[in-house]
């Protein structure tokens, strides 16, 4: 299943709506890194509210995605991690170090706007 990437002002929003295969995840990864440059975006929000599992591959992909996006000059926020998912991830030692997280999409946008204001 393809993940739609929406442009909202300076930001890109990718909402994952169902469990993704590894291939889909990689596709999203490339598409986002590509689009950050094309749209001159300042931030990327990945919404994982619908996911009830985040395995090690997904976590690693998200982490490398965040780092690449940073290299392309934008920041990444991952939002909507479910409490149970967070609990399991931490127990497995998948902590998404160095990546901003937010409660939901609204919080994620607020976080990006805050960091933008600080830069200006």
């Amino acid at each position, binding site marked *: 299943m393809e993940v739609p990437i929406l442009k909202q002002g300076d930001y890109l929003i990718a909402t994952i709506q169902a469990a993704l295969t590894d291939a889909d995840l990689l596709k999203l990864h490339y598409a986002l890194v590509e689009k950050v440059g094309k749209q001159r975006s300042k931030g990327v929000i990945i919404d994982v509210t619908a996911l009830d599992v985040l395995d090690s591959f997904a976590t690693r992909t998200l982490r490398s995605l965040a780092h690449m996006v940073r290299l392309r000059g934008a920041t990444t926020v991952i939002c909507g991690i479910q*409490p*149970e998912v967070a609990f399991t991830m931490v127990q497995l030692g998948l902590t998404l170090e160095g990546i901003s997280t937010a409660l939901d999409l609204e919080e994620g946008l607020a976080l990006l706007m805050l960091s933008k204001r600080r830069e200006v």
Partner: protein
Amino acid sequence: MPTKKDALQFEGKTNVDTSDESRSELLRQLVAHLRENRTQLRQEWARRITEAKLLTAMSQDEIFAEATTIYDNYVDALQSGTFEALQTYARDLSERIIPRGVETHEVIGIVLLLRDVLARSLFAKYQHDFALLNRILDAYEPAANRIANTVAVSFVQERERTIRQQQEAIRELSTPVLQVRDRLLILPIIGVIDPQRARQLTEQLLRGIRTNRAKLVVIDITGVAAMDSNVANNLVQTVEASRLLGASVIVTGLSPEIAQTLVTIGVDLSKMNTVGDLQGGIEEAERFLGYKVVPVGEAAIEDQRR
């Protein structure tokens, strides 16, 4: 009076029952006898209960009232051979008397006393005919045993249920997640943290973060006496999990002993914000959220004077 047939049966096989039909007939006879002597037997039973110093938590009248109901239920169960009604009543009774401190041995004691009282009355009634007495007891004993069993098991089950309920309540109470400002939660931890409690604590906190849309959580561990590497790791995990939900955590109230232990065992606490006490933690959190606390009224005047 013993008939010829009875005597023959007694000679042939001592206490093995003849047939279902005669057994139900005997039971009927038995129940009729117990109904007839209801008042007397009931009084005898209540007297024996008091004599044996059972159910001391209850008054004389209460014992008599309960005894009456149990007696009737008992006889009904003997008659019908079904134990559902008795079971329901026993549960109900247990629910009423457990909070008053009635012990298991008392409940089993009174049921066994009733069994004894009834058996004695049967002995007295049929003593002239040993064969008939034998068969009556054959009919009575299994049913009586099952009744005693049912009542005791119901009581123990009810007790266990109560204990489970209380444990659950204590566990829920032990980890309150409190909101003190918009988007600021406090989680005071008191007592020992075992892995199970740590897990429950984390789950409750994560749920709290979601429902209150918290940005900051102050975890106060003033009330935690000791901490080992497991507990410390659990705490680190809690902090990490909260961060994944977008909330930062400030840990307050680490005692000198705990600080020393943590450093000695080398737990990586670099990801944790720590502040000395709860007040400091809340002030820090307020700064982070952009609040400023200004004294007003008398406090303000005093503040100016200083």
